[in-house]
């Protein structure tokens, strides 16, 4: 390959930089969010940064976008996490959608991103966010996190059971169907694991009435409901859910075993 005289190389390089910056100019907030949606976090972060100070761009949304993408820019370094925290802190004033999301993600950073994690601070933030009844499904997922934290809080099953039951009151703060459903489901599974079958069953039934839309999650919930009902002697409830499962998910690895269980439950023992 022939050696280009140095001067020409420099010119070409300069031109490339210019083209790149023009291209970036017409990326909108929407395309930046789409990058993030398909795991292209570095491109998304760069797009958000380039949109700073552009006319007609909602600065609060832009700042939130930049902050949230810093969490997954590779490589993940403490400096990036700190930048994300600073940006989120600028959004806390006021009470619009971005304030609530900013507080939620600050708590998320405390829970999982800091080494060592600030679990107590995160727990308090989640609690405070929920009492404000934001009606935002993502923010309401904090309830699931509180339930899981409660499950982990005590080593012995008895302590775990009390901690879990204490979180029940959070339910009335949840205004969205998604928030209530996920909370009841995970609380129910945790209560069953801690040994409190009747309460766990109640929670699972509450989640099912809210409507689980994801087939994979629905299957797990129905099996848990049917099995717990059988063990606690509520045979017709168990029969109902065994049939519901076998009818909708006939080809599942558990179907054979559930058929056996259904036979046991249907024919009343002599």
């Amino acid at each position, binding site marked *: 390959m022939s050696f280009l005289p140095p001067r020409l190389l420099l010119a070409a390089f300069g031109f490339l930089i210019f083209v790149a910056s023009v291209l970036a100019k017409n990326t909108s907030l929407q395309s930046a969010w789409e990058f993030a949606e398909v795991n292209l976090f570095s491109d998304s972060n760069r797009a958000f940064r380039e949109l700073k100070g552009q006319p007609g761009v909602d600065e609060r949304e832009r700042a939130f976008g930049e902050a949230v993408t810093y969490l997954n820019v*590779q*490589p*993940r*370094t*403490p400096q990036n996490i700190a930048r994300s925290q600073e940006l989120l802190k600028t959004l806390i004033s006021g009470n619009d959608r971005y304030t609530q999301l900013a507080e939620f993600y600050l708590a998320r950073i405390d829970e999982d991103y800091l080494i060592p994690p600030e679990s107590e601070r995160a727990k308090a933030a989640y609690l405070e966010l929920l009492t404000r009844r934001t009606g935002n499904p993502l923010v309401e997922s904090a309830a699931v996190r509180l339930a899981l934290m409660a499950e982990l809080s005590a080593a012995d099953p008895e302590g775990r059971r009390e901690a879990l039951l204490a979180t029940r009151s959070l339910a009335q703060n949840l205004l969205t169907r998604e928030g209530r459903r996920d909370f009841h489901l995970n609380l129910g599974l945790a209560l069953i694991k801690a040994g409190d079958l009747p309460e766990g069953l109640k929670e699972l039934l509450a989640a099912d009435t809210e409507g689980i839309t994801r087939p994979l999650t629905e299957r797990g919930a129905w099996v848990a409901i049917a099995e717990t009902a059988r063990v606690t002697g509520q045979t017709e409830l168990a029969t109902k859910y065994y049939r519901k499962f076998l009818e909708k998910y006939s080809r599942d690895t558990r179907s054979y075993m559930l058929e056996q269980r259904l036979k046991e439950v249907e024919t009343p023992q002599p």
Partner: protein
Amino acid sequence: MALPISKTKALLEWKLYLFIVPSMVLVATFSYYPTISAIYHSFFLWGGGDTKEFVGLKNFTDILNDKVFWTSFITIGILVIANIFRMIPSIFLAVLIHRLKSDRWQYWYRVLLVVPMIVPGLVTLFIWKFFFDPNLGVLNAALDASHLKVMLVHLDKFFGWGVFFEGVPTAWLGEPALIIPALIIWGFPWIGAVGVLIFLAGLQSIGAEIYEAADLDGVTSLQKFLHIEFPLIMTQVRLSMVLMLIGTLQGYGLQFLLLGPDGGAGGRGMVPGLWMFNRAFIAGEFGYACALGLFLFVFILGLTWINNKFVKVDK
């Protein structure tokens, strides 16, 4: 040695630097860059993909309490010492061929020496796995035929090794105590064709008159070796020892093929290189493997530096 050159003349000869540029560029991009990147990644939690998390010196502190890594240095130490002894047959063969009278035979032996080099490594591996096979293998058959096995069984009872039993074919690669001996027996005559030819080259520069003088004084063949032949090939021996040292410390191919990634029974076959491979490809901890690689590099660097410093041989 290269001619000394004054500063001014060197400036005149600047074109000479162009000669080394291509090699430097090639070596910098394809040897140095991967190493620098390995050093960079040894500070990260990295699964080989492009999601990585900065963890500072955590990988290195983990090495301190990585028991498996440290015990693997015992195995590699034994193998290095064994490999030093395994160089003797090559020197012995070189001397034997050198002392032959007829030139014709010397040439044909050199040709025969080169033939095994062209046989693919997989064939040799097949033969040796066959050799160690517990049921139809040669080693067990030979031991049984020569009643050596019976003697081994008695010795075993006496010392309580718990390895050799009456009527039970010994699993040479399945028994923790036998793994290192099996690795040492591997490749039995231990002849490195290139090594022998290099030693032969060194021996050739001994003039005929030295041998005549030695014969007159009635010098035995052993003394002849120690005082005439060995000193002359010292430089080649040291070179091949350094290359062997580096090769053994870094190598893990044989252990992987024979014993698998966990170093076989009792983990006795585990060597540092194999542990690096295990952490990278089995546990998926590439960052940690890079840190191990860096540690191994510094360790070998130290060893070769000591070797050059204390094993001084004047040219």
